[in-house]
């Protein structure tokens, strides 16, 4: 198989395995993309090419699916992914102000990654922890009922 610009490393072997397992499952493209993103952290065009060829689906269609769904990203993310909930319950409790403060604190905008690759910010829609609104997450850690002034200390914790 043509591996484009991808290095023939452990990740690549894993990707091939994922494709092999799902090759004959009907409608498995989204599942394959989820797993591939788990392996690579994001879905650069090189990965999309391998998936397209492996599943026998036109690259245009793979690209169409990747760009349609919010969970798939073609840009690498930071080591710590900060995700601020902008669902309704969090919004009426002021999560937009949390987001403003995080952007200010890190000096980057939503969707971007800091230059050192440590932090990235994204806005998400409801993680279902509305009882703790406003909520944001840093990787798998959930922070609820926070105010903008709590932000610097929380970020400092990850900076260390």
């Amino acid at each position, binding site marked *: 198989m043509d591996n484009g610009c991808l290095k023939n490393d452990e990740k690549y072997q894993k990707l091939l395995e994922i494709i092999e397992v799902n090759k004959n499952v*009907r*409608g*498995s*493209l*989204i*599942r394959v*993309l*989820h797993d591939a993103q788990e392996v690579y952290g994001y879905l650069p065009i090189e990965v999309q090419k391998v998936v397209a060829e492996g599943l026998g689906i036109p690259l245009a*269609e793979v690209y*169409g*699916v990747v760009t*349609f*769904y*919010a*969970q*798939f990203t073609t840009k690498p993310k930071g080591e710590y992914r900060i995700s601020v909930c*902008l*669902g*309704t*319950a*969090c*919004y*009426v*409790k002021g999560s937009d102000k949390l987001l403003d403060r995080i952007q200010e604190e890190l000096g980057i905008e939503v969707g971007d990654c800091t230059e050192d690759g440590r932090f990235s910010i994204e806005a*998400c*829609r*409801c*993680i*279902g*922890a*509305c*009882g*703790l*609104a406003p*909520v944001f997450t840093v990787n798998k850690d*959930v922070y*609820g009922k926070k105010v903008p002034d709590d932000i610097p200390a929380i970020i400092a914790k990850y900076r260390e």
Partner: protein
Amino acid sequence: MITVEQLNEIRKNSIPKVALRKKVFETRVPELQGDISGLLKEGNEKTYRAHILCCAGTGCKSSGSDKLREEFERVLEKYGLSDEVKIVKTGCFGLCAEGPIVVVYPEDAMYCKVGIEDVEDIVTEHIMNGRIVKRLLENYAAREKEGEITEEDLEGSTFFKKQMRIALHNCGRINPEDIEEYIAIDGYQALAKVLTQMTPDDVIKVMLDSGLRGRGGAGFPTGRKWMFAKASVSDQKYVCCNADEGDPGAFMDRSVLEGDPHEVLEAMAIAGYAIGANHGFIYVRAEYPTAVERLTIAIKQAEEYGILGDNIFGTDFSFRVELRLGAGAFVCGEETALMTSVEGHRGEPRPRPPFPAVKGLFAEPTILNNVETYANVPQIILKGADWFKAIGTEKSTGAKVFALGGKIKNTGLVEVPMGTTLREVVYDIGGGIPNGKKFKAAQTGGPSGGCIPASLIDTPIDYDSLIQIGSMMGSGGLIVMDEDTCMVDIAKFFLAFTVEESCGKCPPCRIGTKRMYDILDKITRGEGELKDIDDLYELADAIKSSALCGLGQTAPNPVLSTLRYFKDEYIAHVVDKKCPAGVCKALMQYTIDREKCIGCGKCARNCPADAISKTDYVAPGHKLPSMAIDQSKCLKCGACMEGCKFGAISKK
């Protein structure tokens, strides 16, 4: 494959597992009525004398319930009680605001906001000495003050008293990762009954008679959906479950999947039997990792126990369930878009007809029901259509789960009979608005619904009443807003959501919602004119009548309903250039009350824009001249107001 006799055998052997929870299960498990000491001697459970149920739903997990469970294990070990007390990991109890929640049986004592430091107390006081730790009971301090505490109150919780839990009846009461607990309390009995005693037509008749309507939003009668799919002739049909709970602020389905996954699997198999399908798909949000994990475990267990698979209960009915993960697209909650997504494509809707009951997933006849709808099915089969019909109102039968959120004390999950008024939900169960603020509106139906103003708080909540007042049931998100919420800003918030989530296939939604958003943005920036309001109406009308799918057709609702009940706020933004709630930054003004200002100058020092300076005016009784804000320089950051100790600065 197992037989019904084997299922009953498993049930009998598993009852000791839940026997200590007699208080909540004795009406459903006849064996638990009366003396249970005999049961406690059976099986592996013989040494236990208490169960500690720890919520492991997303809400409590976020509040640290995993660490709490470890602490319980450690402390029980320390006192040598590990063999006497069982720790059970459950799904959501509903009172997420008070999490992490722990319930101790046999007393059914519910402890709230349990911290690591409280574990020692619960073990030494409650478990070892039988004394309930009162200070941790729900809202104990306030209730005691009002003299409301009775002996009976020490057990159970007021939060649940006005609720009627049907879809949630197992949530927070069983271990969702143990199929035997589910079987012990009547799990899979409905499937057994359907397969051995009923024809598919019987099943559909029960569903029709029960009056159950879809809990996902539109409220289409479930029995009719099944009837249409059964009437379609095909070798292959599909049963789908919509667990793509995209409505921001709603988490009913997540809680059912996390707390009681087998209920949904059982219902899907019943639906499969009714319409003649042998394959099911659950389309679940990837944002719900806990739900995905528990569903995966549940499917695996059901297969291992021979309940899902070939020739179920020795009949010729076979059924398998597959999980499909969404990838973050709100439009995939729409039925045709969901099916396109399950097929692995961009989740774009397609025109109907043909309806999914004729041509759905992989172009075969398909039914799609929502998680909560399914969670009602097994009980309707077991208890009968008449039982279900007697609950709720004539046209909206049964109960409905709501996710209470926003400016309300008891944020969390509640289930109430249809026809309960909004007032009862907000005040009696929800505990009212915190911080002494006034109730302004409740939003139901998410981005497709509308706002219900305070004047209509006595409206009964059912499908038809809500439509009448310009909102809709939706999936069950209920966001409460107080006087600090700007209704124009909220309408803009929902439109921003729709603009981002519009799949782009049809122009009315793709272009129309963006235009509406631009107008709202203009109004909140203080640049609106009266004609903009007319344009909003016109656009709303055009989008509603011409968009391809439900997402677009309902997208104007948040704007229309806020215009209907809060037009004065729109006018205030447009004509007076004021935001009455003080939310829209461009329209806000910070002003200093020159009579209250003592002239200390702290605000001027705090101001990052040098917008505050001394005036010539000295208020009577003060020594220094008062300060004033130059509005042309003000950034509206609020630093002045935060720092003022004399309450002289206000925001309008």
